[in-house]
């Protein structure tokens, strides 16, 4: 029952966010009508980061405990990571077109998300090339951790080689959020709503994976 209330609440919450983004929040200076992409683009990018982080944690758990279920969780997180990074890339690239003038110009943020995509597509390429489940799980966990430690380096280097047009991250060096009150309300609402929605999606897929591994066990 509690879960049902939570779902209905989530539905109303995100509907309110969508309506708020269009009708309630003011338009930002210099961005005009495109401001609204903000409420969808940033949460997508945020969920991408969460998903890849979760997959790295599940990879460590797998190597530690050797339980195949963690490998399945890591795969689910990675699939969501790729899905949301694609969504973030698409929304971002539309936004870039209208505000900078090009869909893609190798801005640092564009470069780093592109490399993230490369890494995780390589992850799935590796998985498809190994037959044994245990071996596949261990090797892909190792690869994903190996890739994970190189990501910070890319994040430092790339802004040096290419200059960025991307607005400063919201929590910037002065640790101040510079945003109009009503925009901030809708923005935070969107961030919280999409995160809750992601957790729900993840739980569902987690259950699917659990069920599948149960059925597989029965067959043997």
């Amino acid at each position, binding site marked *: 029952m509690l879960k049902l209330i939570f779902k209905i609440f989530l539905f109303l919450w995100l509907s309110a966010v969508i309506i708020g983004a269009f009708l309630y929040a003011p338009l930002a200076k210099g961005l005009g009508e495109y401001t609204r992409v903000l409420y969808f683009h940033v949460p997508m990018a945020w969920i991408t980061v969460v998903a890849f982080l979760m997959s790295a944690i599940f990879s460590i758990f797998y190597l530690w405990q050797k339980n195949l279920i963690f490998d399945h969780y890591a795969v689910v997180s990675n699939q969501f990571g790729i899905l949301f990074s694609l969504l973030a890339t698409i929304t971002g690239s539309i936004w870039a077109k209208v505000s900078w003038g090009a869909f893609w110009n190798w801005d640092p943020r564009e470069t780093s998300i592109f490399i993230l995509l490369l890494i995780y597509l390589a992850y799935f390429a590796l998985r498809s090339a190994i037959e044994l489940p245990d071996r596949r799980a261990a090797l892909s966990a190792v690869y994903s951790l190996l890739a994970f430690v190189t990501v910070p380096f890319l994040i430092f280097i790339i802004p040096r080689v290419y200059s960025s047009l991307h607005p400063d991250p919201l929590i910037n060096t002065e640790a101040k959020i510079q945003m109009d009150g009503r925009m901030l309300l809708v923005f935070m609402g969107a961030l919280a709503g999409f995160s809750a929605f992601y957790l*729900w999606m993840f739980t569902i897929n987690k*259950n699917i994976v659990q069920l599948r591994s*149960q059925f597989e066990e029965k067959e043997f």
Partner: protein
Amino acid sequence: MEPLYLVLVINLIVWIGIFSYQFYLGQEIKKLKEQSKLTDNRGQ
């Protein structure tokens, strides 16, 4: 209708679609889980 409202309505429809799909998926999984529990119990 103004384009703004048109886009808003499309957005809402898409959102309702995604939500209903998730909801449906969640219910199905719940059913399957209960079923698998039942078969487990019968097996014991």
